[in-house]
């Protein structure tokens, strides 16, 4: 039988939705028994949320002052110690999971599969390579302990309604002192979170300046959408790094992806392949983005974005 340990991602008080997606992935392994581990300074609130996820059999709390911040070097030895007896150890393929899980795999000497997008069996999975241009079926030998990150855009979040027992777990390992958390600058906004938003408005190099991005923020607020950007826009300083969508930014799966002045480089498209509807506005009718857009409009974004906003406002 498969025993799957999932590490919870959270901000100290709220469980990140990526965890619920890992649960759905784990539940796709036939007969899996799912345990969620919560590492925090005080994990009570987050553990209670994890216990409500449908399909979770057990929640383990590991409270330690050193777990106040998600530092991989600190978490990895604890998670590796906890992993004893589990067939699979899963984490989300967010920057948190990407940083942590390979360190755990290294400590365990176990193979890791990155970005699982489909489960075929307990030992056979599918994952993207080459920026999503190849989907590869991969297999490990039965009996191999496996570490994996779950491509969150490929799975729905597990529902609530669970009522798993919560237990405190004692982990006896020495924690390193060589790594010190200094700070995190989270650009807080009232807009929906890019990774979980149902609608995303995004912009590319064509926006030309950070001020011009205001056009998109304004439209996004009208639509209750999150705002994303291409790498070119981020590199040029028009948008913050946490807004980047694509191979090396965020992989998202909104209902609607509405992009302005983005050419459609493969590295960008990797990030939006799972969007339900892609809409592109670009002044170049030959732009590759039109090859995959569900709705395309050739035109000037500076004229179209504000006009669309007016039309939406008028219809309300």
């Amino acid at each position, binding site marked *: 039988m498969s025993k799957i340990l999932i590490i919870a991602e959270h901000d100290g008080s709220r469980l990140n939705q990526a965890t619920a997606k890992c649960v759905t992935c784990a539940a796709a392994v036939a007969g899996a028994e799912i345990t969620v581990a919560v590492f925090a300074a005080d994990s009570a609130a987050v553990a209670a949320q994890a216990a409500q996820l449908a399909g979770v059999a057990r929640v383990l709390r590991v409270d330690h002052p050193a777990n106040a911040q998600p530092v991989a070097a600190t978490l990895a030895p604890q998670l590796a110690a906890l992993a004893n007896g589990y067939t699979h150890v899963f984490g989300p393929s967010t920057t948190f999971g990407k940083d942590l899980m390979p360190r755990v795999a290294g400590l365990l000497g176990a193979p890791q599969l990155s970005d699982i997008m489909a489960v075929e069996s307990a030992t056979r999975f599918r994952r993207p390579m080459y920026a999503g241009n190849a989907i590869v079926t991969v297999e490990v030998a039965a009996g191999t302990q496996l570490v994996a990150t779950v491509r969150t855009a490929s799975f729905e979040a597990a529902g609530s309604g669970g009522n798993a027992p919560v237990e405190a777990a004692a982990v006896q390992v020495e924690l390193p002192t060589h790594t010190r958390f*200094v700070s995190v600058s989270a650009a807080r906004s009232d807009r929906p979170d890019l990774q979980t938003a149902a609608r995303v408005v995004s912009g590319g190099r064509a926006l030309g300046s950070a001020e011009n991005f205001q056009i998109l923020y304004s439209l996004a607020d009208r639509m209750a959408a999150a705002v994303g950007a291409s790498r070119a826009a981020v590199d040029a300083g028009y948008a913050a790094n946490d807004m980047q969508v694509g191979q090396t930014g965020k992989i998202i799966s909104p209902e609607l992806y509405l992009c302005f002045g983005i050419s459609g480089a493969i590295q960008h498209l990797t990030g939006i392949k799972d969007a339900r509807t892609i809409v592109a506005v670009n002044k170049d009718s030959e732009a590759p983005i039109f090859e995959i857009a569900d709705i395309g409009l050739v035109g000037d974004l500076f004229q179209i974005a504000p006009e669309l906003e007016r039309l939406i406002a008028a219809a309300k």
Partner: protein
Amino acid sequence: MKRILVAIKRVVDYNVRIRVKPDGTGVVTDGVKMSINPFDEIALEEALRLKEKGLAEEVIVVTIGPSDCQQQLRTGLAMGADRAIHVQTDAIIEPLVAARVLHKLAEKEQVMLAILGKQAIDDDASQTGQILAALWGRPQATFASRVEIEGGTATVTREVDAGLETLNVDLPAVITTDLRLNEPRYVKLPDIMKAKKKPLDILDLASLGVEALQQVQMVKFEPPAQRSRGVMVKDAQELFAALQKKGLV
């Protein structure tokens, strides 16, 4: 001597349109342009800048792979690395094995830093640096967009989902690079000539005591599901109507 180890991987150039072989055994690489993994070029650039600032004395580039990889090592030398190590093998090298090799070399060369790319754009694993840090028992600062070295520690700004995170780590340490860390320099022709005279050592896995273990079988490659071209609308009014019809506004 203060040394920096930079791991560079030979990969299909990022501009190449990847095609899956019809028999599903891999992707087409015959006659395809190969380059240094873009993140590894950034890793090398960062190492060279640290050396130029007097914070390091020697930059070593290393690659693990078949004989063709020497082209990329020569490019690394032309960019400014002092010497190169080629761990020659035709085996499929998984991140755990690459990390074991790099661990051996990091200890042998007593490096102050190992800088790797945050991911190789072929396997997109994003594992090797973190595994190396685990095996070595040293700090890791992944997805770096800024690195400052001072007094035996590195202060590294990391690109994380929430924004930017800063860690301070003791050296030696492992750093993996994000795209915005720097812009790699261009190689000049005279440097290519000079690079030919720089030392390039060839080792094999056995001499490092590392086994070419393959734990993950790649059973089948398939092209991704294709999204098809949709409809074109002619103005904002039509776009709005189309969105309304789908219930999206």
